[in-house]
């Protein structure tokens, strides 16, 4: 079966971001960009399904600026077969992204769509679920285990109190949680080979999707800073401070 994986180019998770002085957003000039960590897990899961003989083809898609081709090449080096870039320089909300992905799903007809559970920049956790509503497919969000069995996929999900397993009819949508797998690294020969794999570029207009949004960002501020704390010398002093100064125990 065909598997479609959506990936996003985001600021690297180790970067401590800074808010711009004019409060228009976060300063992303000259900071390291990477594939969103949850998307890496999604690519890895698709590659493992292929290695098990479950998946026959892996198509990786991203929506973003031309530079997002780097992340698509990374996915190709990890084992995806071909890539699609929906090129847009606007900052798109999840609903617009879900609509663009729906157009790609209609064209590609995958049996399984794998996304990360959230992007670490916008922290929205929406796109997979929205794609579920638009396609009408079942959704297995926050997956820590995925097993394809016949025309169904069993997804074990991380929920607040523990784990829950659901069975979804295929085609279906899965969003990955951290513990689904440990993503591999791309080897140098595979990085070289990935340069020759097909990468199509399309525009939102060509897909017939409008990307207007009902939500706009008015300003972005730095969070309130915590006042500097003190270092105590002993456990006894710590207990004394907690009891008498902070009065929390």
């Amino acid at each position, binding site marked *: 079966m065909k598997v479609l994986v959506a990936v996003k180019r985001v*600021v690297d*998770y180790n970067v*401590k*971001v800074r*808010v711009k002085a004019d409060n228009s957003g*976060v300063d992303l000039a000259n900071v390291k960009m990477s594939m969103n960590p949850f998307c890496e897990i999604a690519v890895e899961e698709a590659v493992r399904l292929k290695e098990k003989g479950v998946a026959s083809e892996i198509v990786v898609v991203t929506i973003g600026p031309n530079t997002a081709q780097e992340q698509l090449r990374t996915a190709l080096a990890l084992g995806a077969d071909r890539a699609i870039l929906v090129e847009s320089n606007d900052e798109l909300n*999840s*609903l617009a992204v*879900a609509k663009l992905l729906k157009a790609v799903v209609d064209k590609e007809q995958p049996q399984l769509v794998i996304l990360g*559970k959230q992007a*670490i*920049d916008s*922290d*929205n*956790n*929406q*796109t997979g*679920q*929205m*794609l*579920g*509503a*638009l396609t009408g497919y079942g*959704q297995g*969000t926050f997956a820590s285990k995925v097993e394809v069995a016949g025309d169904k996929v069993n997804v074990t999900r*991380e929920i*607040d109190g*523990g*784990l*829950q*397993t*659901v*069975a*979804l009819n295929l085609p279906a949508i899965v969003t990955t949680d*951290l*513990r689904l797998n440990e993503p591999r690294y791309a080897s140098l020969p595979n990085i070289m080979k990935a340069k020759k794999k097909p990468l199509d570029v399309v525009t939102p207009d060509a897909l017939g999707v409008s990307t207007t*949004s*009902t*939500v*706009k*960002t*008015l*300003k*972005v501020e*730095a*969070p309130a800073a*915590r006042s500097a*704390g*003190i*270092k*105590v010398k*002993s*456990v006894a002093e*710590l*207990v004394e*401070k*907690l009891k008498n100064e*902070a009065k*929390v*125990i």
Partner: protein
Amino acid sequence: MTILVIAEHTNAALAAATLNTVAAAAKIGGDIHVLVAGAGCAAAAEAAAKIAGVAKVLVADNAAYAHQLPENVAPLVADLGKGYSHILAAATSNGKNVLPRVAAQLDVDQISEIIAVESADTFKRPIYAGNAIATVQSSAAVKVITVRSTGFDPVAAEGGSAAVEAVSGSADAGKSAFVGEELAKSDRPELTAAKIVVSGGRGMQNGDNFKHLYALADKLGAAVGASRAAVDAGFVPNDMQVGQTGKIVAPQLYIAVGISGAIQHLAGMKDSKVIVAINKDEEAPIFQVADYGLVADLFEAVPELEKLV
């Protein structure tokens, strides 16, 4: 303006996060209706009717809603929600699972994890693991929003007397089925609602050593949490994880033991009132946010702390 709040519940009981969500709805202003969708959920509906400030409780009691499968619940909420100005749900694993599906069905954007209400259409939410706070404005006809519980003080669970009304919705969509669940059992307070949280990280070295934290937590009446490193190493189950991708807590006192303080962990606890860090590495980033830091070997400090409190 009428606001629909989706109740978080276990059929038999209402979850505390519902009270924080109603508090956010009260800040927006207008009539508040609560939807309890489940199977055999009369008890949860009764509890919802008692919440202070709730005008009406809608009950959708149907076997299809038993496990809150989004394929079944989202069409119900989207149908009912058309007549409302706002649809709110707690940013729990359930709320996050169902609500974006509702938003897409209504063809509107969703605003995730708000921490403050500026006005009926303007909200604040953290982005980049809490390293920036965005103020966002929605022009959608129906504003679909998830609420971060720690951003709002809960309303009183008693004192209201809302009318309870049964609603019927679409049945099983036939796309998904509940297979089973494994819930972690714990006698300690729930992590997201506890007044004191004691968390362990990689420095605990193994799962067995968490007994020191459990002993301290029991003495303090605290919940026990963990960093991602401790969960990934298999010391404790994943529902104990505090951070950007785990639970968000804001207790009165947060005691971080053997936790370095990575950005992703801080995202889950830096709104705690008082933060204590116990770590033997005095350069650990956790000390930059800790109100009280103790540079010490946790295996000596924690048992001593347990004796002294």
